[in-house]
């Protein structure tokens, strides 16, 4: 048998009636970058969590460095030199970087008197790998990208031989992703083995040595990256052909539906995050806002949805001038909003699927009559949406928490689009969802545009911006740096603007 660092055999794991892993086999060679690919809910995270000791498999064996082992807890994994960077960051926001890194590494009675030395060591390590992390910073003050680097540093500090990264690029900007991928390559070249989960096929093609495809809790194939192509990977993943390029119809944009003049928004800490921003969105048009995350996009979206205070000279929706007060009930005035964090902002998790469908309309006829909810109507309506948006769910009375990420996102999209908005604000619509769902969501957005909606799309995923936008605005430090048409030849120009160069100087 070939030399391998990890071999998982016939791993089975169920959660109640959910069968997350149904006998998975996986082999990883030392020093390789091995990608795991699969739709939402295919069982990638569960499999990796088993490897990291977070879950115990119901049955199946794990061999590590040619020894059969059981990994009872993350502690065991760390001792075996397995590191993991989780899909949702596992950092304690109120502690410093250094404290997070040493967390759990010492016996309880240990007095952390040598913190300066530890910080120095972390600092050195950070320099060695060019990670640019300040050990004394509080994690809650860090950007998402920085937090991720802390996660990687944590694993390296613990001396990992095998590093598992669960969708590390889902929350990163293109530049950050780029940087991360080349960094992973470097690590692999130094001998580290890397297991890498992603939904982005370009990344798989770019960085991995081999790919294992999971579907419905089973590993259906492992292939050498050099011997495959994105189209084949997509087909194996989804079980059908996937459109790799969306068909965007050319269409004439109409009159201005939404416009904002001189918007100013402060962030949580009271610092200006959006500065004198003006833009307009027309009928039958997608305006994309590109930019590195942390440049005020979140605040822009929050302000337009009326969820934070903002100052502006004028906001006009559908020829009506809006006040601050109007903003908080914009969804009653014809705006729909797909928020960037579906679990935190978009959904009420213990509620059922159908209760989530009516989150904005529950008060209106026919869902509510004289204040009483009309359960029959709501259920019929939900079943209709489930069918129309092909959401995979057993029963609309099921709690939405049981759905996979992609299907949760589809619920949000279905709810918002079904309101036939005049103006649609979309923030990171496909973050963290698989290519099948991504394709579907993007198609829906375009369909909405073709039906006449004005759409403002915020995304850090340049590819998504290009795929959907009719016009691209680049945002940097709270300002719009300039406007560019979605012409692939002008990617470099956009990149420069995202880094702060104005149109004129670019």
């Amino acid at each position, binding site marked *: 048998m070939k030399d391998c660092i990890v071999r998982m055999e016939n791993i089975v794991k169920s959660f109640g009636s959910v069968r997350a892993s149904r006998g998975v086999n996986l082999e990883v060679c030392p020093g390789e970058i091995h990608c795991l690919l699969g739709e939402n809910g295919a069982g990638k995270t569960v499999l990796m969590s088993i490897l990291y000791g977070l879950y115990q498999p119901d049955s199946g064996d794990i061999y590590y460095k040619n020894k059969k082992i059981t990994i009872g807890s993350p502690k065991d994994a*760390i001792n075996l030199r397995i590191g993991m960077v989780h899909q949702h960051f596992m950092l*304690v926001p*109120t*502690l410093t970087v250094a404290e997070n890194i040493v967390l*759990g*590494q010492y016996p309880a009675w240990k*007095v*952390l008197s040598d913190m300066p030395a530890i910080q120095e060591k972390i600092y050195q390590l950070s320099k060695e790998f060019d990670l640019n992390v300040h050990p004394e910073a509080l994690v809650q003050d860090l950007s998402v990208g920085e937090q991720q680097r802390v996660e990687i540093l944590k694993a390296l500090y613990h001396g990992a031989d095998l590093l598992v990264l669960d969708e590390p690029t889902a929350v990163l900007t293109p530049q950050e992703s780029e940087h991360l991928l080349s960094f992973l390559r470097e690590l692999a070249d130094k001998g580290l083995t890397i297991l890498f989960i992603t939904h982005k096929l370009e990344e798989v093609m770019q960085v991995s040595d081999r790919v294992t495809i999971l579907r419905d809790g089973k590993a259906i194939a492992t292939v050498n990256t050099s011997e495959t192509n994105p189209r084949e990977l997509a087909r194996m993943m989804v079980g059908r052909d996937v459109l790799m390029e969306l068909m965007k119809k050319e269409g004439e944009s109409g009159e201005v539906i939404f416009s904002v003049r001189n918007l100013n928004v402060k962030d949580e800490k009271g610092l200006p995050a959006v500065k004198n921003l003006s833009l307009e969105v027309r009928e039958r048009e997608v305006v994309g806002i590109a930019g590195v995350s942390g440049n005020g996009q979140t605040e822009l979206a929050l302000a337009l949805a009326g969820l934070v205070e903002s100052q502006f000279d004028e906001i006009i929706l559908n020829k009506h001038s809006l006040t601050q007060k109007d903003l908080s009930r914009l969804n009653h005035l014809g705006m729909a909003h797909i928020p960037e964090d579906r679990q935190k902002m978009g959904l009420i998790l213990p509620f059922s699927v159908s209760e989530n469908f009516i989150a904005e309309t529950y008060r209106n006829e026919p869902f509510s009559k004289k204040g009483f909810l009309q359960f029959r109507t709501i259920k019929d309506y939900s079943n209709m949406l489930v069918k129309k948006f092909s959401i995979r769910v057993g029963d609309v009375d099921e709690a939405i928490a049981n759905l996979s990420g992609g299907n949760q996102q589809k619920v949000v999209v279905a709810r918002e689009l079904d309101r036939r908005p005049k103006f649609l604000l979309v923030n990171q619509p496909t973050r963290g969802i698989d290519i099948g769902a991504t394709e579907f969501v993007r198609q829906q957005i375009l369909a909405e545009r073709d039906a006449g909606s004005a759409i403002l799309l915020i995304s850090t995923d340049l590819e998504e911006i290009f795929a959907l936008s009719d016009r691209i605005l680049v945002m940097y430090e709270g300002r719009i740096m300039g406007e560019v048409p979605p012409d692939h030849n002008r990617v470099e120009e956009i990149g420069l603007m995202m880094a702060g160069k104005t149109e004129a100087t670019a």
Partner: protein
Amino acid sequence: MDLLPGILFLQSILAATWRMATPILYAAVGEVFTERSGVLNIGLEGVMLIGAFAGYSVAFESGNLVLGLLAAILSGILSGLIFALFTVTIKANQIVVGAAFNMIGAGITGVLYRVFYAESGKVLSLKTFQPFQIPFLGDIPFLGEVLFNQNIMVYATLLVVPLASFILYKTAFGLSIQAVGEHPKAADTVGINVPRMRYFGILIGTTMASIGGAFLVLAYADQFVEGIVTGRGFIALAVVVFGSWSPWGAMGASLLFGVFYALQLRIQAMGSVLIPYQFLQALPYVVTIIFLIGLTKRRVQSPKALGVPYK
């Protein structure tokens, strides 16, 4: 107005402040650990009562105050184990279990006290920890009386708070406690045993609360009385929030509460103030609300996982 009576008045208030604050302080510092580990124990009142009874009965029977204190500590550990069994292992709603503890505390101490002491005809008082002057320091005018003429359990707070702060912020244990209260899953992924840390957080809280309860009988009053805790467990809960979940903050908040409590007793005793005494009695509680309003401008967040059972 004469200056001297003014100073005496102030001195008297301040000396009383520290004493009044002490039982609350013990309970609150412990609860800081409990809440920092993500568990809310509204049963402190009951736990303190049990501690007071255990401390009293053992000290009374043995004639040894230190044994009494040890018994209180043991009772605190036992309370903590039961509380943790329900809230951490069984993962029950913490407020339900806390409410149950308050009932059990009142019930069990009431029944036992009646059975063993109420009709015993014995003299039920014991010799409490006495105030002692610290040599030299105790002679300093003003400060001497305020700071250096207290009993050992009051002095001990000067040790407890820095120690608690040190443990919470400067030891691996403290970091783990903070981590399981803030982001238990993150703690889990670095190999921290979340339930175990929460057990510890709870145990520290109940043990300290029991000491606070025992303080009332071993170092303040000299015998157990049903309901002797009189709401101090609830005040301690408020003090934890008010002190932004830090040991020093808890000390500050307890002292603040103490000062207003002492003040209201003294204003009543002056008798010349025309405010109805009930308004004076409400003063510490109103002031707590007012300060809370002022302080929450700082927006100190509660531990994120507070009240949420882990998995």
